[in-house]
């Protein structure tokens, strides 16, 4: 039953052919069946989920007009606050943190009647590209349990790919939705910066973070975006701009649409199998009447260094709040400074410490201009590249990642790990919307096609994504770890 898309499940719920309770029970059974191997969930909220599902069914029986997502079982990344439900950020320092409030997106989904199944694993504080940096355990890739699901939203991606949850939310600071979506063969969208409220999203890098959906297909992506793209006065960066109904863009029409393919994103370092799959997808779009042309984004190579200076600087400031005073872990000490130091040293993992140190250094007296300010200026150049490209093109297409999912433990060096973000990172620096969707396989592992749009033009990338999805041919391959009945209908 959980092999259904949100769209199909909605129709069945509406016709009362299935109930939210049945759907939720099926999802919970699925989690019991596979999560011992997959390990996508940090917390499963079984009792609350069943109660919420029964409540939705009661409302439907009483004839109430319900939101499209009412009764749909879903999962949230564990850095999204959930009132009364453990929210760890994948960190030992928040091992016992139970938020007294809901994030804006939690509230919106709760009000819509979506059923929270639980909280998914992530790299600690969303810092990583493999979910190996979780303070608790490593999540497996459903296509090959020896491999990583990507990160940092690896739990959300794996849960949707394996059919545990019908959709999930993640957060994306430098690719943390799109890269795991690519590695797990699902659709993942990072909306425009400001499109979705960050209220209640535990901050990593505030000028880059954005929440977005993981879904089985493009229509579901539009449906979930409809529910969460809402202005929120509690986030001062939340856009004061009404969102369109994103499903209205799903007409399959791409004739005359101009798609730019930056040559820098297909250059050295991109695996042959990935390149082939992406070029194959572009051929399909061209055959539908899109004009696919090579373009240049000349500052692409500077994205990673600029990003790692900006993101770590913001992180070093945001993570200063974890000091053992108000919540989470405390290492008792005779004086306050020692308590801070011991708490932070015991509570944070290796990568988080490294990033706090890098950020602290680049902001420190004497280095600010050379590193942080320089990176902010380069960020302007990267934005200008996109701005110029969007003067002539409706959207930009690239691979989502340079390769397919790698083996657990294969990348030990931090800098090599950062290179995984080479195709996704500039999008965050520029604040643009971008989507990753499956476009084939390389060596039996999913490949992601990334579509990048103009600010607040999620509609166009959904249109192009939908057109490709409708015309790419059927995909009958299922992940090795998946709930009986399979993840893909």
């Amino acid at each position, binding site marked *: 039953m959980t092999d259904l898309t949100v769209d199909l499940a909605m129709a069945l719920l509406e016709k009362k052919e299935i109930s939210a309770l049945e759907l939720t029970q099926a999802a919970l059974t699925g989690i019991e069946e596979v999560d011992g191997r997959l390990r996508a969930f940090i917390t499963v909220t079984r009792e609350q989920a069943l109660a919420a599902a029964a409540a939705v069914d009661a409302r439907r029986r009483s004839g109430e007009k319900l939101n499209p997502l009412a009764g749909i079982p879903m999962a949230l990344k564990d850095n999204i606050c959930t009132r009364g439900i453990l929210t760890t950020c994948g960190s030992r320092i928040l091992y016992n*943190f139970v938020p*007294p409030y809901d994030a804006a997106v939690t509230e919106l989904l709760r009000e819509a009647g979506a059923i929270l199944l639980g909280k998914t694993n992530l790299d600690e504080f969303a810092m990583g590209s493999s979910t190996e940096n979780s303070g608790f355990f490593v999540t497996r890739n459903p296509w090959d349990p020896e491999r990583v699901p990507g990160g940092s939203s690896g739990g959300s991606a794996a849960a949707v790919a394996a059919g545990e949850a019908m959709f999930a939310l993640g957060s994306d600071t430098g690719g943390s939705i799109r890269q795991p979506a690519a590695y797990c063969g699902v659709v993942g969208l990072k909306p425009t910066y*400001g499109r979705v409220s960050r209220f209640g999203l535990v901050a990593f890098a505030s*000028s880059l973070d954005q929440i977005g959906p993981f879904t089985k297909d493009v229509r579901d992506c539009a449906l979930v975006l409809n529910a969460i793209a809402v202005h929120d*006065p509690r986030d*001062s960066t939340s*856009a004061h701009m009404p969102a369109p109904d994103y499903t209205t863009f799903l007409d399959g029409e791409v004739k005359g649409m101009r798609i730019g393919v930056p040559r820098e994103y297909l250059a050295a370092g991109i695996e042959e199998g990935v390149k082939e799959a992406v070029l194959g997808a572009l051929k399909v779009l061209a055959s539908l009447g899109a004009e696919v042309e090579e373009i240049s984004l000349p500052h692409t*190579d*500077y994205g990673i*260094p*600029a990003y790692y*200076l900006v993101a770590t600087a913001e992180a*070093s400031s945001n993570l*200063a709040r974890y*000091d*053992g*005073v*108000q*919540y*989470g872990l*405390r290492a*008792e*000490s*005779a*004086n*306050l*400074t*020692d*308590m*801070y*130091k*011991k708490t*932070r*040293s015991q509570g*944070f993992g290796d990568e988080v*410490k*490294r990033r*706090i*140190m*890098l950020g*602290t*250094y680049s902001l*420190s007296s004497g280095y600010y201009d*050379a*590193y942080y*300010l*320089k*990176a*902010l*200026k*380069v*960020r*302007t*150049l990267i*934005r200008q590249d996109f701005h110029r490209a969007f003067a002539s093109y409706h959207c930009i297409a690239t691979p989502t990642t340079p390769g397919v999912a790698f083996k657990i433990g294969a990348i030990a*060096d*931090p*800098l090599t790990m950062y290179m995984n973000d080479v195709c996704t990172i500039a999008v965050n620096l*520029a*604040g643009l919307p971008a989507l990753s969707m499956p476009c084939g396989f390389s060596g039996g592992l999913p490949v992601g096609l990334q579509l990048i749009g103009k600010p607040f033009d999620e509609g166009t990338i959904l249109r192009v994504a939908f057109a490709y999805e409708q015309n790419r041919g059927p995909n009958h391959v299922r992940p090795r770890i998946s709930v009986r009945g399979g993840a893909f209908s």
Partner: protein
Amino acid sequence: MKITVEEVAHVAQLARLEITEEEMRLYTDQLNAILEYAARLDSLDTSGIQPTAHVLPLKNVFREDIKKTCLPLDEVLANAPRAEGGMFRVPPVLETEEASQ
């Protein structure tokens, strides 16, 4: 520009992190590798380029100055490692003679 072991120790102190000798050496090497990579930014001429701290053209965002309800005190303190009398309890801030012994 190379970061030294002493600078790493200083940065750790600023970030309120306690790191071992071994971590110190490891972080020094790793941070140097990252900073060396970051040095490629120097090859770009950014004179006259405005920095982008934020992509949205926002200035100050205000709301009406009206009283709103806050979270109840017991809920706010529920996550505190130690709370007392409606407040967070912490160890002494100033070194006392007793604490320094």
